[in-house]
């Protein structure tokens, strides 16, 4: 398949802003106003209220797209994915997978989807072959067991008891189960957690091949690199809400780049050319260390370097860095946390009044 063409198709959809939705009838997954509250058990009213893990989430995933849900632990990734998988009913809002409700119509949805839970459950006394054989008997259009084992690189461990497999090998067995029915939609909940670097890259390769063959994939991860490597689009979840969403490049581009260096003794920030003219939008100073933020990295860097050249000084610890998903993520999480605190404070005030 032509990658460039595919990407431009996807890009076209993302221009509508927000989570970016291509033509609605092409969506494999549609989520609107999704909420999930866990029932509380405590005796006090506060505890009985329960905990709202998903607080109004909207997004869509187009056919053949790889959509990543990113977030810190407890951000609501798994809670959201479980609703998409039809493992639980939402407290409010709507989920459509392949045009159907994955919970109430799960018997017609399940044969067309595959999923990998965060923690796989396999009888420890069975071998991978026996486990897959059992799953194949319960899966429409299952591939041959040997193929499934080979695709995740477990052929050599096919007849070892599951209890003797390493954590990474169990993750791969779980992936083999998820792929067994050649699903149209694949849900992967932290598929590479616990894998070593090599196994992680192998899994990425497999996921890419699946995507290229037209499988729609929803992936949760807390590895930013993983989202950057694989995702066409992503949403960053924070405290049950989407803090940012869009194509990876757009999410990153919305964040400033950085230049940092140490000013030599005798020089001050004011000695630099006017920062505004360099395209610098903000700065921080800690001791002699200066950190400039800019949306025009090349212009700002050139300005700083030409100035240093003219003055004949060396900028120690010079670091010129374009925005990365990691920075975007940290920034968004911090911003969302601040906003959350504000909103929380307002709610408390409202309740008091």
């Amino acid at each position, binding site marked *: 398949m032509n990658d460039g063409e595919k990407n431009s198709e996807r890009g076209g959809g993302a221009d509508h802003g927000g989570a970016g939705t291509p033509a609605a009838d092409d969506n494999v997954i549609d989520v609107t106003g999704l909420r999930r509250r866990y029932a509380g058990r405590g005796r006090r009213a506060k505890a009985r209220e329960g905990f709202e893990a998903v607080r109004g989430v909207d997004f869509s995933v187009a056919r053949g797209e790889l959509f990543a849900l990113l977030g810190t632990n407890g951000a609501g990734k798994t809670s959201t994915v479980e609703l998409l*998988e039809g*493992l639980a009913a939402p407290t409010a809002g709507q989920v459509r997978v392949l045009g159907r409700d994955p919970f109430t119509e799960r*018997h017609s949805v*399940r*044969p067309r989807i595959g*999923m990998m*839970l965060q*923690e*796989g*459950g*396999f*009888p*420890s*006394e*069975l071998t991978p072959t*026996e*486990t897959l*054989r*059992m*799953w*194949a*008997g*319960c*899966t*429409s*259009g299952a*591939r041959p067991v040997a*193929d499934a084992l*080979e*695709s*995740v*690189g477990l052929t050599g461990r096919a007849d070892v008891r599951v209890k003797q497999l390493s954590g990474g090998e169990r993750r791969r067995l779980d992936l083999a*189960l998820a792929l067994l029915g*050649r699903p149209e939609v694949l849900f992967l909940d932290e598929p590479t957690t616990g894998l070593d670097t090599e196994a992680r890259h*192998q899994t990425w*390769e*497999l996921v890419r*091949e*699946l995507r*290229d*063959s*037209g499988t729609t994939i929803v992936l949760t991860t807390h590895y930013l690199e993983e989202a950057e490597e694989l995702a066409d689009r992503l949403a960053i979840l924070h405290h049950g809400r989407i803090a940012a969403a869009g194509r990876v490049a757009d999410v990153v581009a919305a964040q400033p780049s950085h230049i940092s260096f140490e000013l030599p003794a005798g020089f001050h920030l004011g000695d630099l050319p006017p920062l505004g003219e360099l395209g610098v939008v903000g700065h921080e100073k800690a001791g002699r260390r200066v950190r400039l933020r800019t949306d025009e990295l090349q212009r700002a860097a050139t300005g700083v370097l030409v100035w240093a050249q003219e003055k004949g000084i060396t900028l120690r610890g010079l670091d010129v860095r374009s925005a990365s998903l990691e920075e975007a993520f940290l920034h968004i999480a911090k911003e969302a946390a601040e906003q959350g605190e504000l909103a929380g404070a307002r709610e408390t005030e409202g309740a008091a009044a």
Partner: protein
Amino acid sequence: MSTAVLDADAIEREEGRGEVRAETGAGARLLALGRAELTLLGRNKTALYMMLVIPVMLAIAMKQTLVGTNSPGMGLSVAAALLPATLGYVLLFGIYSNMTGAYVARREELVLKRLRTGELRDLEILAGTALPAVVLGLAQCVLLVLLGGMVLKDGLPKAPHLLIAGVLIGAVVVVAFAAVSSALARTTEAAQLVVLPLMMLSLGGSGMVVPLDALPDLLGSLLELLPLSPVMALIRVGWTGGAGTGEILKHLAVGLVWAGIAVFAVQRWFRWEPRR
């Protein structure tokens, strides 16, 4: 990981798009799950021992007692007292105790949770997990009836349909109670304790060790209402062939009510995931 395999898949997928794939049927799913469970049962020495050895050992021990005391005046032959009890032991030790442990183990290893992510329906998961133990238990019952009758020279059951009805109702009741009991234990070790109340109650009060006819009337008719009492009564009546229609209908009704209660309890209290 093999690129070639996936590429071949990809081509097949492209070609196969839009065509309706054959979906699995409930029978095939049950068999697939049952086969895996049979493998697991074969690798669980404790469960096999409970299943295959204990009922026979209890029967032999009971025979010595019965013969020694010359069966205290119930008008029952040794075989008529012993064989129904043996089938009761199969239900309790072979199926009930075993399945309680199996449900706990599958839940705690998150197997039930994983199974629920696929195409299996909830009832299929419960039934498929129980399939090998139930089939083996029923086969044991058949063997015990045939061989027992031969060894004890008491011939075949006089009313086999009642005996079969009793065993089948009993199987449903003990599997459902095993599912409910599994909710009370967090480990397979604890499961061994959780099964004790129903086991003691049934051994003592459902006519397995002491026939209910031998007890004072009031106590006897109260104990007739215990979960496995109608099952044991049907099996015994099926063996001897001696009972009025009214009595048979009463046992059937009580047995079915218990089956209904047990199934309701499963829907209400069964736990699919560990408590965290």
